[in-house]
């Protein structure tokens, strides 16, 4: 078990090095003079030289890369040119709402996907299954920002149950503020989960041990929840982990729609203001979040499937 988990961590190291390289190279590929682009054409030369020195652009590339990695290890990503504050503290403030939204969205997706996926697989090719499949395709095809706006119109403006935007104060207030955004991103993820759960449950239902369990007169509930679901979950956890990248992608847009002070909105703002140090740090942090989630998924395989623990 420990060996398995250790191996997963070791495997993640080259990828982490890779994402530092990509985040670093990207920003240095900005054509022309990034500092001049950031500060605008009329910036005085002294200010340009000052910022160049602050960013360390006047030093050789390998040194800059070493500085970037060294800083990243300590959580130091330099200073935001626009906000005039350390990037790490800006990101620190914005991380909470984003993680809250992701966790809440994933939770909603799982709560929606488990029953619908099971029903779809049990009633394969019957009316409930066809209905669920069509609804799933709709959930997949809906632009999250559009769904978010429609939910705002219906549930915030017309009915007034949920606030239109913001993050609120305190845990309960966060939940209230983030329900609509989390539902929006959750539906998209649920669509993917339902399809994968249906497919893997269908495979499991066709196996001999399920047939054997049924032949022994095991109750249907037990066959589904105890014998089948656990085996189908492994594939679904993979799909969940792989698709958390898509969850983050839609969350970036959704934060803008609902005006949530998270990392996604910071990223979009930084593009408008051409705040390159912040963009660089955010690219890296988002990559890191995905890797961390994938490691979590690996750990949960071990929890779900004893075979993983032994080998």
């Amino acid at each position, binding site marked *: 078990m420990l060996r398995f988990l250790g191996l997963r961590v070791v495997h993640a190291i080259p990828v982490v090095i890779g994402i530092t390289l990509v985040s670093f190279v990207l920003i240095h590929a*900005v054509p022309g003079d990034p500092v001049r682009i950031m500060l605008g054409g009329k910036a005085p030369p002294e200010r340009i030289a000052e910022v160049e020195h602050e960013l360390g652009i006047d030093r050789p590339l390998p040194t800059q890369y070493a500085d970037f990695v060294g800083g990243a290890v300590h959580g130091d990503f330099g200073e935001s040119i626009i906000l005039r504050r350390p990037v790490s503290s800006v990101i620190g403030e914005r991380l909470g709402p984003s993680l809250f939204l992701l966790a809440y969205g994933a939770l909603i997706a799982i709560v929606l996907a488990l029953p619908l996926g099971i029903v779809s697989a049990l009633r394969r090719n019957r009316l409930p299954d066809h209905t669920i499949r069509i609804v799933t395709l709709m959930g997949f095809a809906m632009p999250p920002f559009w769904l978010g706006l429609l939910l705002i119109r219906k549930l915030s403006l017309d009915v007034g149950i949920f606030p239109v935007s913001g993050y609120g104060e305190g845990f309960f207030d966060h939940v209230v503020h983030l329900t609509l955004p989390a539902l929006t991103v959750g539906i998209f993820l649920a669509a993917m989960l339902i399809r994968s759960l249906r497919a893997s449950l269908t495979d499991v239902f066709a196996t001999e041990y399920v047939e054997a369990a049924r032949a022994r007169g095991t109750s249907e509930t037990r066959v589904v929840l105890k014998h089948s679901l656990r085996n189908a979950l492994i594939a679904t956890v993979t799909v969940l982990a792989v*698709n958390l990248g898509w969850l983050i992608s839609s969350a970036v*847009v959704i934060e803008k729609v609902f005006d949530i002070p998270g990392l996604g909105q910071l990223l979009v703002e930084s593009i408008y203001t051409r705040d390159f140090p912040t963009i660089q740090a955010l690219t890296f942090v988002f990559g890191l979040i995905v890797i961390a989630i994938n490691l979590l998924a690996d750990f949960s395989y071990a929890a779900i499937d004893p075979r993983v623990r032994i080998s």
Partner: protein
Amino acid sequence: MATRQEALLSSAGRLRRKARADRRWANTTLYVGCGIMGIVALAAIFAPLIAPYDPTAQNLAEAFQPPSWSHFMGTDNLGRDVFSRVVYAARIDLQIGFITTYVPFLYGVVLGAVAGYFGGAVDTVIMRLVDVVIAFPFLVLVIAILAVVGPGVTGIYIAVLAVAWSMYARLTRAEMLVLREQQFMLAGEALGFSRRRIIFRHAIPNLLRPNVVFSMADFVLNILLVASLSFLGLGVRPPQPEWGAMVAEGQNFLLNAWWITALPGAVIVVVGIGLSLIGDGLAERMGERFRLTV
């Protein structure tokens, strides 16, 4: 004896009926999907003939008209006909969606096939690259590249072409690992065919099916991507009509003029469902699984 035979026959019949139900569903989804996409594609091609108004002509006297017989989808805040704009937007959205799906498809499949066939160092280099690209949330990486090359349609092309191949490469490599051990592949090697011939003539045609099926989901995701980027103001610029940008333009008038936001978005949903139905139908026919992501 007779009962056993009957039982076998009836179970065979049940299986046959089940298979037939599967096929019927697959055909229906495929035809409905093709129908939807056919209509949308024709609308895009013949936009000047179909659109009743100039998509960019402003007419402030006609602003905020709800849907009616003279304006199917109403008019926006500048009095432009939403239906005409939606029809013209199909051109740009389908074009970007198509190119960002099928260009990366080409080199993604080749890279994945090469990685899977040769293994070793080639495989390691290509797949580590894939791992790194996939480690980023797709939209975040695309936005970061847009920061470098500048927002806009050209930027979207550069960004997506740099990133999207990774999914095809990953899918193809996994299939190639299985295919590599098949008899006909070994026979090709034994006959002394060149590696290029084995990969391009023998392997890749067999690797296309899962990729074609996945490309339908990818097409949907790419249309959502273009719409999202334009919604954020990083893609297609106004006044050129684009579905996502139209949703963004309407969001300030959500309370009094829902149609400006709701209808262009609904068109995206219809197109997405059309493409997904084609993917679903193709998958069932080809004995593949319709994956929404790789």
